[in-house]
């Protein structure tokens, strides 16, 4: 009954993207669709408009189409009864269309156009409940922060066009690879600018501040934008232009930024009390993983994780939305035992959490393992010191990811609680569908299997398996889960459900009191287990408290914004004083010139004219004296002149 309601467009787009994917698999590396028509062309150079679908686009497209379809159906249930229902779906549809545009764009300008449309739709959607001031603020923050990144993007695109005269992606990448050795410095700067755009869109440090506040929008918005699409667009941009980054030797920067964000996000998520904000920080952290993988040369790993993350994060957001719908609150401290009365939601959330934590055999395990494998490869083959650090941080983040997710799961869904209403099927069915996909989607890139995502993206490559790493990552996930479980049990046992300081005390107390309370367990379990917890958890919790206080937000608000405002007012006063003075000066000069001309005109020209007239008058007055009126005078003149003429004629004739 729900699938019948699925919007026809969503249905068709899903079908189309699957068809494209099948095509792409068959094509083995050759782009499936590269159709363009000239769009803005001036004198032979310009920008086209068209489609470009290769393995990467096809794979991402399927993920986006599937998630979008599910979220659409979910949203029809979630937004039911809202008075601006149609407005919501209008913007939502526009957003989805623009995401498709980004994925299938054939050139960077087109990509940017759709990227910007996404930014605007995100602004409109985050600020959908515009009556709430925090929603308005969040919408502005999101738009402006991503806009700063867009500036870098624009500069990079302009620079690339100025040098290569084309923005068509495959052509551009080929050109860059050819001339790369000669333009290293320039290329690095262009990559950095482009990367800033990706950073802002994907909420990496330091441009992540918009993502937690963006949770003020409706949950379906988070389910689509902040899991599978908009934040993925930043990673997608880097994926699309990866040859350029490689040519400029830029990936180490990506890796550094990514892994730092991964750890940072995980730390922030650990002590968050709002369920959606936790997921927001989690998104930031997982995107950091993808960036880190890219930085270590793990193209396939990054794509794999992008796809799996799209599915399970969307699932988590939708489940959270379902919980919020039922519990009427977003604070996890006020939700207990939800699982009893909302079993389907709980199960979906559990699947999502397992996937995010990276517990086999769910999707997240394989993709996270691929990410870690790429880091390992980097450490082994390229840069041992850096690579090892990255790998270690990656593993730490994996533990923390499991920890924070299960902290939420155990705290919210288990134990005794109130009676909640399960959400309507219109919301549940998409969640279940996404959950089932999440379980199996790991199969798209199984190590050692020839038909895989790797084969799609880099033809002929077979993913290799690193067994000990897989074991390590699985146990890292398991460790995190276990810590979360323990902390929740302790908390429940001691009835301490207050704010963070109390939790910390309880956990400290729990760690140290454990051996006393559970001596027998000590003997049974590995001692390494407890030691690890004692060494790891204390500093981690201290660090995460510190991290949550760091808050670049404040710095931005107190320093950056007033600074920019001051600069703007200074420039404006310069404009008033200098520019206006210049303009006035020109005006005055013109006036003076005009006066001068007028003067010259009056004195000179008029003088000349008057002079002529006066001269004529004077001549007349003089000549008038000749006219005496006396006939004899006239006769004399006649005679004299007659004589003169006679002589002149005589002289001439002679």
């Amino acid at each position, binding site marked *: 009954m729900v699938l019948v309601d699925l919007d026809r467009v969503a249905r068709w787009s899903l079908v189309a993207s699957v068809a494209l994917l099948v095509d792409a698999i068959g094509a083995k590396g050759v782009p499936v669709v590269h159709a363009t028509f000239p769009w803005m062309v001036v004198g032979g150079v310009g920008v086209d408009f068209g489609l470009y679908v290769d393995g990467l686009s096809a794979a991402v497209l399927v993920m986006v189409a599937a998630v979008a379809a599910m979220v659409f159906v979910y949203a029809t249930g979630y937004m039911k009864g809202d008075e601006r229902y149609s407005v919501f779906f209008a913007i939502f549809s526009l957003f989805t269309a623009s995401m498709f545009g980004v994925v299938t764009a054939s050139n960077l300008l087109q990509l940017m156009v759709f990227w910007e449309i996404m930014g605007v739709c995100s602004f409109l959607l985050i600020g959908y409940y515009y009556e709430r001031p925090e929603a308005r603020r969040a919408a502005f923050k999101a738009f402006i922060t991503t806009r700063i990144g867009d500036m870098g993007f624009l500069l990079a695109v302009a620079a690339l066009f100025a040098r290569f005269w084309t923005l068509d992606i495959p052509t551009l990448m080929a050109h860059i690879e050819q001339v790369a050795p000669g333009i290293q410095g320039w290329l690095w700067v262009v990559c950095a600018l482009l990367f800033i755009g990706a950073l802002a869109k994907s909420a990496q440090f330091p441009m992540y501040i918009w993502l937690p506040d963006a949770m003020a929008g409706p949950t379906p918005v988070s389910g689509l934008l902040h899991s599978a699409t908009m934040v993925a667009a930043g990673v997608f941009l880097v994926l699309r232009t990866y040859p350029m980054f490689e040519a400029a030797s830029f990936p180490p920067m990506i890796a550094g930024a990514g892994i730092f964000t991964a750890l940072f996000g995980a730390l922030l998520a650990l002590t968050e009390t709002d369920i959606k904000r936790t997921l927001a920080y989690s998104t930031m952290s997982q995107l950091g993983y993808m960036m880190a993988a890219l930085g270590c040369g793990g193209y396939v790993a990054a794509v794999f994780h992008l796809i799996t993350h799209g599915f399970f994060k969307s699932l988590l957001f939708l489940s959270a939305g379902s919980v919020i719908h039922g519990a009427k609150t977003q604070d996890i401290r006020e939700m207990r035992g939800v699982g009893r009365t909302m079993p389907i939601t709980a199960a979906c959330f559990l699947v999502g959490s397992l996937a995010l934590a990276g517990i086999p055999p769910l999707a997240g395990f394989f993709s996270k393992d691929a990410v870690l494998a790429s880091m390992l490869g980097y450490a082994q083959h390229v840069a041992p010191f850096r690579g090892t650090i990255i790998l270690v941080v990656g593993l730490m983040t994996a533990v923390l990811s499991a920890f924070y997710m299960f902290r939420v799961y155990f705290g919210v869904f288990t134990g005794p609680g109130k009676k909640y209403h399960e959400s309507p099927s219109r919301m549940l069915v998409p969640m279940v569908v996404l959950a089932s996909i999440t379980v199996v989607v790991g199969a798209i890139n199984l190590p050692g299997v020839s038909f895989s995502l790797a084969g799609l993206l880099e033809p002929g490559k077979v993913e290799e398996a690193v067994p000990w790493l897989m074991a390590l990552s699985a146990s890292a996930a398991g460790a995190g889960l276990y810590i979360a479980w323990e902390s929740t049990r302790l908390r429940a046992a001691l009835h301490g459900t207050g704010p963070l300081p109390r939790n910390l005390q309880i956990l400290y107390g729990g760690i140290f009191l454990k051996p006393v309370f559970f001596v027998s367990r000590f003997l049974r379990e590995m001692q390494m287990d407890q030691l690890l917890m004692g060494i790891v958890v204390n500093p981690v919790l201290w660090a995460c408290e510190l991290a949550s206080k760091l808050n670049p937000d404040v710095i931005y608000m107190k320093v950056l914004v007033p600074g920019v405002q001051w600069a703007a007012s200074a420039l404006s006063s310069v404009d008033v004083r200098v520019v206006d003075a210049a303009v006035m000066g020109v005006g005055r000069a013109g006036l003076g010139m005009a006066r001068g001309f007028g003067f010259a005109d009056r004195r000179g020209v008029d003088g000349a004219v008057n002079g002529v007239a006066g001269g004529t008058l004077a001549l007349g007055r003089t*000549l*008038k004296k*000749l*006219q*005496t*009126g*006396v*006939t*004899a005078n006239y*006769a*004399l003149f006649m*005679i004299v002149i007659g004589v003169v003429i006679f002589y002149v004629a005589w002289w001439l004739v002679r």
Partner: protein
Amino acid sequence: MVPPLYFMVLGAIVFLIGMLGFLTRRSLIQALMCLELMTSAVTLTLLAIGRTMPDGGLEGMVLATFLIVIGAAEVGMGLAIVILYFRRHGDATTDDIDLLRG
């Protein structure tokens, strides 16, 4: 024969006398008389030049005849103007004739 040149010279002299007289006389009638002198001088000169022609001066005689007639008409008219002027102004001197003065 007296050479025509002498007559031409005489004519010139008489013309000059007439011209000078015309320009300097106060009395209108005296001016008219000088005018008549000039006409006569011209006639004489004309006849003298005619004499130098191969046909024996006939052309000159014809022109002189014309001039006599013209001179008569001219005197008649001149006197008529003087009489009218006298009637208007009460005298016939050139002192106050300056209506054309600019």
